[in-house]
């Protein structure tokens, strides 16, 4: 990981909102902005962004994936850093962009340099900005689900835990098998819903076993998947993106939770 700069002041960060956050849960992006600013950097959100290209890439549609990847490189290369509140999108930028554009003389280097400055949110806060604690409170026990891309593509494990344990009143209970996939996998969850749900059910049993009332993760894809099945089963476990808790923005309902009246 990049070493901590002397001062984050003046660092210009482009926020990669992610298509899911934009559509389903804008509060996550506002939380991300608050956290990055708390770490001392300046955030800008370029308007010309849509999606990182994973849906096409993982469905084998390389041509459309490359077109989108070029668009992201062009939009974000002017920043000092690019930060996404998602391990999956950050992993796409960091690991897969350089490979997709490796044979493109006009883009190969640009993709590689974008990759080197792209980060998942919590790891950016801790590893780049050197943020060690946040100013937030959350009463109760939570458990944390590592997304596979955060864990295995980006090796982000300590950063979210470190920040979470600095939240006032929060206690973190680890899952029995924190390396296990939740079964989301993007299009996989729609193409093979029964298998996806069976994998998820093992994760839900693990979550229930912790006794925590809240489950957090750094990837909205996993969270929609988890929350959707909990809602179907009418389970009362609260589901949130980790950024909401770290930014102290937990007034609104959790994912898939009914809106409180009044």
């Amino acid at each position: 990981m990049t070493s901590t700069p002397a001062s984050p002041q003046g660092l210009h960060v482009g926020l990669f909102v992610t298509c899911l956050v934009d559509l389903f849960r804008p509060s996550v992006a506002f939380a991300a902005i608050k956290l990055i600013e708390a770490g001392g950097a300046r955030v800008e959100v370029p308007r010309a962004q849509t999606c990182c290209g994973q849906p096409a890439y993982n469905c084998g549609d390389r041509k459309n994936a490359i077109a989108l990847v070029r668009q992201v490189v062009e939009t974000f290369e002017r920043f000092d850093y690019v930060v996404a509140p998602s391990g999956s999108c950050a992993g796409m930028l960091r690991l897969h962009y350089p490979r997709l554009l490796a044979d493109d003389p006009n883009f190969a280097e640009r993709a590689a340099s974008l990759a080197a400055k792209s980060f998942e949110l919590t790891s950016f806060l801790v590893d780049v900005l050197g943020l060690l604690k946040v100013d937030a409170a959350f009463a109760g026990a939570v458990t944390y689900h590592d997304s596979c891309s955060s864990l295995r593509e980006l090796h982000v494990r300590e950063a979210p835990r470190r920040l979470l344990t600095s939240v006032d009143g929060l206690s973190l209970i680890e899952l029995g098998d924190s390396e296990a996939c939740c079964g989301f996998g993007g299009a996989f969850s729609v193409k093979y819903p029964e298998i996806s749900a069976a994998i998820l059910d093992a994760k839900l049993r693990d979550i229930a076993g912790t006794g925590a009332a809240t489950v957090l993760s750094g990837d909205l894809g996993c969270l929609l998947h988890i929350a959707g099945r909990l809602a179907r089963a009418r389970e009362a476990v609260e589901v949130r993106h980790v950024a909401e808790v770290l930014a102290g923005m937990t007034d609104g309902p959790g994912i898939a939770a009914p809106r409180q009246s009044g």
Partner: protein
Amino acid sequence: MADSREDFKAAAVHALADAALQKALLNVKRGFVVKREAAKAKLPEFDALREEARDVKDHTLAHLDLYLEAYERKVNESGGQVHYAPGAVDARAIVLRLCQQAGAKLVTKGKSMVSEEIGLNAELQASGIEVVETDLGEYIVQLRGERPSHIVAPVIHLNKESIERDFRRTHQRLPRQRRLDQAEHLVAEARQILREKFLAADVGITGANFLIAETGSSVIVTNEGNGDLTATLPRTHIVVASIEKVVPTLEDASTLLRLLARSATGQEITTYTTFTTGPRRNGDPDGPVAYHVVLLDNGRSEMLGNEFADMLRCIRCGACLNHCPVYGAIGGHAYGSVYPGPMGAVLTPQLQGIDRARDLPNASSFCGRCEAVCPMDIPLPDMMRAWRERDFARGNPAFNERLALRLWAFAARRPRLYHALSRAVARFLARRAGARGSLSRFPFLKAWTGTHDLPAPQGRTFHALYARARRGKSR
């Protein structure tokens, strides 16, 4: 013979509803994942060893023709004979001919995935030769007329009770009242039956974990010792192996063996590691009189030159199966191939053609755990994606899927349009959900809402809210 079950999805759904199978699959974690982790923790140089092993294999594959020639020379020097088989049909024909030349009535077999791959047993049996599997798991699979559901543990899908039923059904001449309720009883009974077969067999067929170019030896690892008896007792020993099994030296084989045992079963070393080199020499107390090696290509040399070359490093340890959430959910049979799980999702399309096996590389969440535990550092998810790309390039995915992707990509490349659509979708879904936090039904997303609710969006998109906030600020 390894014909894909055309309907992977139906087989998977069936497997998910099979309570006995689901119970048996829990053993994968208990039996393999935990033990591998412990064995790896006890070997601090595991990762260094992994790199070394990868380099050994990459080097060998880059010069495969030379090492195969060297291996063949050594086999000849030791009095054996090598036969090349381009495809499954050729391999079956060669083995059948060798058996017939040996006048074989009874053939014993050690565990061999390659012989499963080419469907050898059926071919021999059709010519009136009795074939007996001597690995306990393979023996049970054979009694049941199934194929193995795991490359290391063929009967991981079964429990003791169902094996007891199989034994009672097939071992009719043994006393009814005998006890068979413990694993020891089952092992003892299989031993008793197999002992006669070992002694009576005319030909013994084994696979090979490695072939050593330096010495012309073939190496097998077993935990039951059945491989030794299969290789040494009959007058003829036939090794059936695929071409990528060759390694340059004994030293290289020992590097790979250290990884294999730990990754497969969490053992430091497998109970029996057997080297066989040629037939019995003058003065040897035992060993076969004739020694043949059938080297199978079956698509491997094509893989050497395509995007799946890394797959040829595979040492068949099964770690990727054991750590795969999809395999853990549905077991091995649903894959419709002798090679299930992540390694099978890459190999099977090469063997059966992508048209027949297109579900396998698609049915992955790309969680990456297979690649993380693979002792040969094989990028399994990347290769599954490469199959998806080939499949897509051939126009294979369903029309709906292609259309959806095309529309989505059209919009995603036009941010203004995309934002407008997102705003509309967010608003629409939020309105439909009302005060509920989620939608339990939605016409275009039946595949999702069949198993979960669709969480409702907060109502406005981030970009809309952000633009408004900025306008507010600048005013």
